[in-house]
């Protein structure tokens, strides 16, 4: 099995290739070991509880959750792009900044910032098209650096526009709710975008495209050789990440309320996305979730200590890179065989089918 390709695990220790040789009688292919129904129910319950949170806890907690979900959206997008489509970008802050400034612009023209979120998201996606046209022929380091240049160009254009506050920054208008309702609305909007982002990535990976993406993740040239349409798949993923980062930027504008170009287009967004994805586990949906939790705990406990915070972040990154190159989730899923988001296949040899299926086949 390849270093990152762990999506398929043969039950009973059998090699998947052996198990899957022809549609032999008795062999069953499933998406997960246990019933996906329970996982789905658990997800719905979790989302419902999260949605109910503003009624249970004070706005200090939901305020932190807003930051958490924003990081999660960004990191999940970067993971989709780098972990699956093989495109390492250090310029996705371009779409964050554009999403933020589209919200500012729409709010200046009288639209509610919350209504502006989907429009700003779509606008960031539209900008993604010509950007992809520019960078699609570039690979690895060239792609990464060109993306960074594009992000800087976007920032340099915005910083010239005096009606958008130029370099001084601008306060977001149109947030007229009471502080209590504003905090709750911001939280719900962020939660909804985060759920849509993760669900969207999950759906994408379980679709036919997901198969192509998994192939590209494992070996781009190999994927091409067996007929994967690498180019068009990468374009789609790039646009999805532009949309996702645009939405994160729109939420950033609403939660910040004061936007400065150098901060909205800050490369440290991408640094955080990379850090989270690497320590969590690149090329898995769970990785960015675990990574965001770890990063967030470190940030909340250590950031008041100044310099030590950065030293600890550096040490964690080095430790993970040396001892757990597939991230924390890589370690966990390897050891316990858990997958929260089943995007691969399990092939069960005859006689070792999962209990659910056995029950149905009414064995004597």
């Amino acid at each position, binding site marked *: 099995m*390849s270093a990152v*390709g*762990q*999506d398929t695990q043969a039950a009973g220790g059998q*090699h998947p290739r052996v198990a899957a040789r022809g549609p032999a009688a008795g062999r069953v*292919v499933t*998406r997960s070991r246990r019933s996906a129904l329970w996982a*789905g129910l658990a*997800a719905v319950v979790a*989302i419902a509880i999260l*949605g109910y949170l*503003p*009624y*249970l*806890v*004070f*706005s*200090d907690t939901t*305020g*932190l959750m807003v930051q958490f979900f924003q990081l999660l959206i960004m990191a999940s997008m970067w993971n989709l792009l780098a972990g699956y489509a093989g495109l390492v970008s250090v310029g996705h802050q371009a779409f964050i900044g554009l999403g933020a400034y589209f919200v500012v612009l729409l709010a200046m023209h009288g639209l509610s910032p919350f209504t502006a979120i989907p429009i700003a998201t779509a606008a960031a996606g539209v900008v993604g098209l010509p950007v992809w046209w520019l960078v699609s022929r570039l690979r690895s380091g060239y792609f990464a650096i060109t993306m960074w240049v594009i992000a800087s160009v976007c920032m340099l254009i915005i*910083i010239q526009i005096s009606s958008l506050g*130029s*370099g*001084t*920054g601008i*306060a977001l208008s149109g*947030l007229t709710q009471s*502080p*209590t*309702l504003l*905090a*709750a609305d911001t939280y*719900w909007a962020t939660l*909804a975008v985060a*759920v*849509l982002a993760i*669900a969207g990535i*999950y759906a994408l990976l*379980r*679709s*036919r495209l997901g*198969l192509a993406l998994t*192939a590209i993740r*494992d070996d781009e040239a190999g994927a091409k050789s067996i007929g994967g349409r690498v180019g068009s798949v990468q374009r789609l993923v790039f646009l999805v990440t532009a949309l996702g980062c645009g939405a994160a930027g729109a939420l950033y504008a609403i939660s*910040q*309320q004061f936007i*400065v170009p*150098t*901060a*909205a287009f800050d490369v*440290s967004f991408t640094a955080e996305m990379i850090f989270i994805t690497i320590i969590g586990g690149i090329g898995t949906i769970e990785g960015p979730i675990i990574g965001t939790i770890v990063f967030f705990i470190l940030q909340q406990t250590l*950031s*008041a*200590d*100044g*310099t030590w*915070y950065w030293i600890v972040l550096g040490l964690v990154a080095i430790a993970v890179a040396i001892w757990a190159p597939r991230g924390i989730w890589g370690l966990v899923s390897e050891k316990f065989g858990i997958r929260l988001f089943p995007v*691969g*296949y399990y*092939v069960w040899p005859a006689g070792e089918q999962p209990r659910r299926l056995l029950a149905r086949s009414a064995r004597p």
Partner: protein
Amino acid sequence: MEDQESGRLAGQDLQLSRRSVLRGIGFGAAAAGAGGLLAACGSAIKGAGSGAAGTINIGLITPLTGAFAGFASGDQFVLSLVKGASIYKSGIKIGGKTYKININVQDSQSSPTRAAQVAQQLIANHADLILTTSTPEVTNPVAAACQKAGTPSLATVVPWESWYAGLGGDPLKPTTDFKYASMFFFGLKEFNGTFEPIWNRIHTNKIVACQYPNDADGNAFRFGFEPLIKADGYTVVDGGAYTDGTADFTSMISLFKNKNCEVFSNCPIPPDFNTFWHQASQQGFKPKIATVAKVLLFPADCDALGPTLVNNIATDSWWGPYMPYSSSLDGMTASALAAAYEAKSGQQWLQSLGSTYSLFEVAKEALSKVSDPHDKAEVADALHNVNYSGICGPINFAAGPAPGVGIIRPVGVQWKAQPAGSKYPVEMKVVDNSLNPSVPIGANLVATNA
């Protein structure tokens, strides 16, 4: 690749994928529906709640790390002093009740994003008052968040025009009253009153090279400072609104050389000045007098350039051991504060010791005037009316150029390279006291480049 093959060979991928897409959409719809339902029953949202009734929570947001870390290098020391003095040690008695004071320090990481985040966290954690210091990049997002949320804030070490513009006000017509925002420092008029007397005493052609970036401070200088010096007969050569983090200043330096600028003025972020000054030195731009703002305010900034390159560069000083003032908390004099810092840290004194210290003095003045420290409107109002004298000298918030702004009067200083074997390689010496004659002159004014 194995997963790939097995998936394909299993021959079920298409069917499964459709189902999974539908399921994904279902989850999304369920979540959106749940959110909508919850939003519909609006009224029971918990909001911010209330803090412990017997404690006053004060937040301090300061750039402990990042590009502006030099500003904050003495803050932890000041905090340890403050915590042992006056109301911060023994509590404050308001309306027959004694309140303990809890100070929560947060690092802005020199980033506006982080500054706004920690401000919102402090607000949500029932801060009664938020103090913030050092550059608009830190103070403006904090002031904006506090104004929005109705939490009193007090800022310093930011030109009042940059701060006021960041709140959405117009510094040219400063009539808007931002109720929950207050600050003490000085503005472009005081920069002008500090720098122009220095320029006037050096014989120059009165052509000023201006290196002002496209950020809050740079734009404030461009639109507020340039007209002041033009009115006094100086010619302005503006190097252009460059972006913070620029690595090559060659074209700006050639412009300054071509226009034969003999006076130099700027307000960049510290790393950019290091780049600029090295390149200026290499490319032969040697203005007769350089008066910098926002950089070379502290000894640590000088290390990056070395004593030769910073010798006789002038800047503004809002505090120093030479100030004839003392603490309103415990009577400690300015020179004693500087000496205590040097003894404790082994580092040279820096002027942000005084401004950070005064944040707590002003907070004490305001709190001692209110009948309920948790009444945010009352605390905000008290801050707008503080009138006292502390370690930074007299400050009157009611008589400032804009509502909620108190003005302190800076003096002109020059960095003086010290002979080998001295305790510190450079020392900040007062060379001009036009704005504040009560501060004694410490050294002669010397041209930066003869």
